[in-house]
């Protein structure tokens, strides 16, 4: 798969929403360990609304499903992650427009997301936030795009692995933002809930892309990161 149609993007994001909703308990448990325990609730609320929006009227621009999901998260979730996951999906207000989505366009989109997340949240890599998963994922996308040889599905898979490693790495960090900040060293050993969500988002995108990629391997359902 070299480009995604508008419909591909819509279906992929529906799959993401479904995966996040199914991960509610997992995300709440992660947030209970070093936050206030509500991360899964907010994400479920936001992505339930997003799924409804995606089920709704047709889209004629491949960036619009992303923006719709983002706006939906921003206006329904509340909490830190409402805005942050909102801009993660929305990218920037000054967005591109295109009927299909190439890897390069997708990469530019997430680069704008990353910049916006960092601008608003003021977190950097190593601060134990979702940036720790998003930043390596975006870097990986950029490398795949620059190589010019990688398909969308493989690029998303690589980005998902990078996001997952980044999320895992947060176990070794103390938090500088969010509710875990005051925990100090007591946050060590726990994964950041937002980084975990971010990894799940990229994994769900990679899974969908592989499932709908002629050349892609069928994904093994056992690697699904839900807790249903």
């Amino acid at each position: 798969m070299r480009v995604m149609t508008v419909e591909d993007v819509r279906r992929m994001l529906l799959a993401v929403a479904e995966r996040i909703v199914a991960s509610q308990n997992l995300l709440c448990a992660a947030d209970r360990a070093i936050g206030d325990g509500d991360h899964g609730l907010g994400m479920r609320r936001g992505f339930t609304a997003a799924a409804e929006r995606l089920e709704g009227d047709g889209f004629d621009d491949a960036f619009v499903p992303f923006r719709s999901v983002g706006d939906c998260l921003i206006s329904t979730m509340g909490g830190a992650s409402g805005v942050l996951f909102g801009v993660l999906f929305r990218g920037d207000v000054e967005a591109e427009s295109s009927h299909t989505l190439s890897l390069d366009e997708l990469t530019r989109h997430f680069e704008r997301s990353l910049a916006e997340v960092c601008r608003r949240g003021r977190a950097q890599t190593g601060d134990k936030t979702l940036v720790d998963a998003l930043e390596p994922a975006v870097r990986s996308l950029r490398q795949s795009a620059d190589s010019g040889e990688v398909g969308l599905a493989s690029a998303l898979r690589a980005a998902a692995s990078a996001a997952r490693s980044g999320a895992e790495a947060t176990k070794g960090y103390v938090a500088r933002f969010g509710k875990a900040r005051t925990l100090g060293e007591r946050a060590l050993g726990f994964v950041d809930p937002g980084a975990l969500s971010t990894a799940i988002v990229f994994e769900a995108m990679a899974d969908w892309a592989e499932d709908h990629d002629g050349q892609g391997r069928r994904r093994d359902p056992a690697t699904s990161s839900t807790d249903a």
Partner: protein
Amino acid sequence: MTKFINDADRVAAETVEGFLAVHGAEFVAVPGTYGVAKRVPGDKVAVVSGGGSGHEPVWLEYIGTGFADAVCQGDVFAAPPPNAIVATARAVERGHGVLFVYGNYAGDALNFDMAAEELQAAGIPVRTVRITDDLAAAPAERADERRGIAGGFFTSRIAGSAAEAGLDLEAVYAVAARANAATRSIGVASAGGTIPGGHEPTFTLPDGQMEIGLGMHGEPGVRRGPMLTADEAADQMMAYLVDDHPVDAGERVCVLVNGLGATTRAELYIIARRVRHNLDARGLHVHDFHLGNYATSQEMHGFSISVLHLDAQLQRYYDMPARASFFIGGQAAPAEVVRA
């Protein structure tokens, strides 16, 4: 599960509906949000507060004479989304701009900032004061990273009065920021509450243990240890407060002994007794003494002590009439009538 609710997902909404069922003569819902607004906001700077629900009376009831003109709740322990904040602010904005007053939490800042951008893009000036009274949340050098807890009461009250006094946005902002900078709080808890619908407490502590400096969402504090007596706990907390903001004899302070939810009024009075001894021993002039549940964290068992260091400017606004649904004007005993 011991809570009297209907549906965990409807708690935030029904709390606001209940508030209006009782106080609907003065306040009105902001449609499509968990926000409420004064029916008749003044022709003045609009003061708007908000944050996650679950801390009632914060923020829902921090509205009224000498308080905010509108407040916007989020879901339990979650900041409200930007569009809800914008709608709430617009309900009371009257051409003099908006002052946001809310607790310094990442989620609140992100959502209120995005709301501020939207309002500013529409030509409405916005200024923001984030409550940072919890001295346990960060060292003094990084005071702007501190969380907002019960001491936000003082800043809210002064901000509301400054706006009612007719100051312009910059001036209201300056007074409110000054009130925030002059306020210190510290909390302690011995048992956590549960989120409605949840079964696990927001934080757990072995029986007979307490934690000083704990946040309003169960964020860890600075000192966990065996239960102290009320007097010991009050003394330690007063020491933290005075360390962080030294006081001179003769200074004028306002105090709030705040219950976090399940603490009995008897305990709060036993604490207040010792706090009063501490203040008197330091020769401070107690301008006003509040006691009660002014900022809660579900049915958490614990309390916080907040001190506002008054100066002439703050006092002018502090002494203006103020009334909210949870609030009773405080009153301090003259030092000589308080027995040791």
